[in-house]
C-alpha cells in the first residue's frame, strides 16, 4: 500500500515546482560561493593551507539556511496540495490507513531532501574541481558536509510536516518556518538543544556526529508524535 501511495504522491507534486526548488536550493548555495570565489579567489586561497577544506566550510556556511528554508517551503507545498480543496477527506475515505498516508508524505519530503543533498555534493565537487583546489579531493569531508546537515535537520522536517498537515491555516507552518530560518541564521548564539542549530553541525564538543545522532533520534520521535496526532484527529 505504501508503494501505491508514494507513486500517487509523486504524481501529485507534478507541476508544483517542488522538483525545481529541490534543484534550486543546492545550486543557490554553491552559486553564492561562485560569487565569493569569483570576486576574491586569491584572498580566500591565502586564508588556509587546506583549500578544499576551507572551500567546503564556506559552502557549508549557507547550507543550514537553505535546508531550513527549503523544508519550510516544501512541507507547506505538500500540505497545500491536499489542503487547497480539502482533498484530505477524499484521500482518507479511500481504503488506506492514516498512518501510511502520513508516512508517504514524509517519505516524499525525505527523498527530496536527500536528493538536494546529493545535488549539493555534486555541485560542490564540480565547482571545487573548476577552482582547481588541489589534487587530493577530500571525498569523505565532501559527503559529510552534504549529508550531515540534512540528517541533523530531520527533526525540523518532522515538526514542519506535523504542523502543516494539521493546520487549516497555512500561515501557521509558514510562520514557524520563518522563525526556523531566523534561528538557523543565528545558530552561533543558540543553545545546543535547539533543533534549528543542529544543521549547522556546531556544538560545544565540536563533534558533528552528535548533531547527526540527535537529529535522527529526535526526528524519529517527532515523526511518530506527528503521525499519531494526525491519525487521531477527525478529518474536517
Amino acid at each position: 500500500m505504501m508503494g501505491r501511495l508514494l507513486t500517487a504522491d509523486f504524481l501529485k507534486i507534478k507541476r508544483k515546482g517542488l522538483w525545481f526548488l529541490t534543484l534550486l536550493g543546492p545550486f543557490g548555495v554553491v552559486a553564492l560561493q561562485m560569487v565569493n570565489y569569483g570576486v576574491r579567489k586569491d584572498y580566500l586561497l591565502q586564508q588556509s593551507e587546506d583549500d578544499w577544506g576551507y572551500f567546503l566550510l564556506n559552502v557549508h556556511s549557507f547550507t543550514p539556511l537553505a535546508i531550513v528554508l527549503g523544508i519550510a517551503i516544501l512541507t507547506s507545498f505538500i500540505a497545500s496540495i491536499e489542503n487547497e480543496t480539502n482533498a484530505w477527506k477524499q484521500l482518507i475515505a479511500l481504503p488506506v490507513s492514516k498512518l501510511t498516508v502520513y508516512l508517504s508524505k514524509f517519505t516524499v519530503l525525505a527523498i527530496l531532501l536527500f536528493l538536494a543533498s546529493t545535488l549539493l555534493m555534486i555541485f560542490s565537487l564540480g565547482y571545487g574541481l573548476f577552482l582547481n583546489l588541489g589534487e587530493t579531493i577530500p571525498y569523505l569531508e565532501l559527503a559529510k558536509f552534504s549529508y550531515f546537515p540534512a540528517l541533523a535537520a530531520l527533526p525540523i522536517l518532522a515538526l514542519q510536516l506535523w504542523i502543516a498537515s494539521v493546520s487549516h491555516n497555512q500561515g501557521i507552518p509558514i510562520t514557524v518556518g520563518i522563525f526556523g530560518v531566523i534561528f538557523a541564521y543565528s545558530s552561533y548564539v543558540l543553545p545546543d538543544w535547539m533543533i534549528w542549530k543542529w544543521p549547522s553541525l556546531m556544538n560545544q564538543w565540536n563533534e558533528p556526529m552528535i548533531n547527526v545522532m540527535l537529529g535522527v533520534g529526535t526526528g524519529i520521535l517527532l515523526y511518530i508524535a506527528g503521525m499519531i496526532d494526525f491519525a487521531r484527529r477527525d478529518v474536517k
Partner: protein
Amino acid sequence: MEYIVQTQNLSKRFGKEQAVSNMNLQIRKGEIYGFLGPNGAGKTTTIRMLLGLMKPSSGTIKIFQKDITKERIQILANVGSLVENPSYYPHLTAYENLEAIRKILGVSKSRIDEVLEIVRLKEAANKKVKGFSLGMKQRLGIAASLLHNPELLILDEPTNGLDPSGIIEIRNLIKRLPKEYGMTIIISSHLLSEIDQMATQVGIVSKGKLIFQDSIEAMRQFAQPKVTFKVNNSEKGWRSLLANGIKADYRDGVIFLEECSDEKVAHIVQVLVQEGISIFRVEEEKRSLEEIFLQMTTGEQAI
C-alpha cells in the same frame, strides 16, 4: 433482512454541541437512500462518521455487517464517496486526478476511461481541473468515487451549486447506478424535491436526530389532500355541518376538511344546498412534500 448500513445510537458531539444524537440508520441493498435535512442538521457529520473520517462519540456503525472502527480499510475498499464540495487537485488534469486515486485503489487503468465515459468527461480528460466548471468538478468527484466499482456509494449534496441541467444530468446518473451496477446509494440533500425524484427510502434528520425513516411512498401518505369550501355564509354553513354530524373546521372565512372522500364531499354539498347556502368554490388543496418536510423539521425547532 440484511442491511448494508446499520447504525446504532450513533452520536457525535463537538465540545458542548451535540451534532448527531442516537441515530439509527437502516439501509438495505439496492436502495437509493435519501438523507434529508436542513443545513446544519448533522447530515455531513453522519456521513463523515460512516466513512471513518470522524470517530463517533458513542454508538456503532456497521457497513456490510462489519464494524467501521475495526475493519475500516476492508469496508472502504467497497465504498465510493463524494463528501460536500468536490476535492480535486487543480494543477492536475482530470485524467491525472483519477490516476492519483486509481494508483491508491490499485484498479486497472482502463477503469479511468470507463468512469470518464460514465460521467461524460471524456473530452475534458486532458484539461487541468482548475478551469472546470463546478458541474464538471462535481462529475469528476463522482467519477473518482466510481473508480473501484463500489457496492456502496455515499454522495453528500452531489447537486449542490449546480445549474438545472447539471442537476438533471447528475440525477439521471444516480438513478442509473443501482439498476446497472447493483449499487446501494446514500444521497444527502437539503432539498426534498431532489430526494423525491430519486430516492426509494428516506431518512429525515433534524437537529441531529432522525425524525423519520421509511419508504418515499410512506412519506407521500402524509401528503393527504385537504378540501376547502368557499360559501356565502361560512359560519352558518359550518354550524349546519356540525349539526349534521360532519366534523369540519372553520377558519378565515372558509370551511375545510382533512381527509375527504368523494362521497363525503357530495354529502356536504347536499347539506349546504339544503340549508340554502350558496357554494362558490369547492377546492382540493394538496399538501406538498415540501410542506410536510418543513412541518417536520421546524416543528422540532418550535419546541
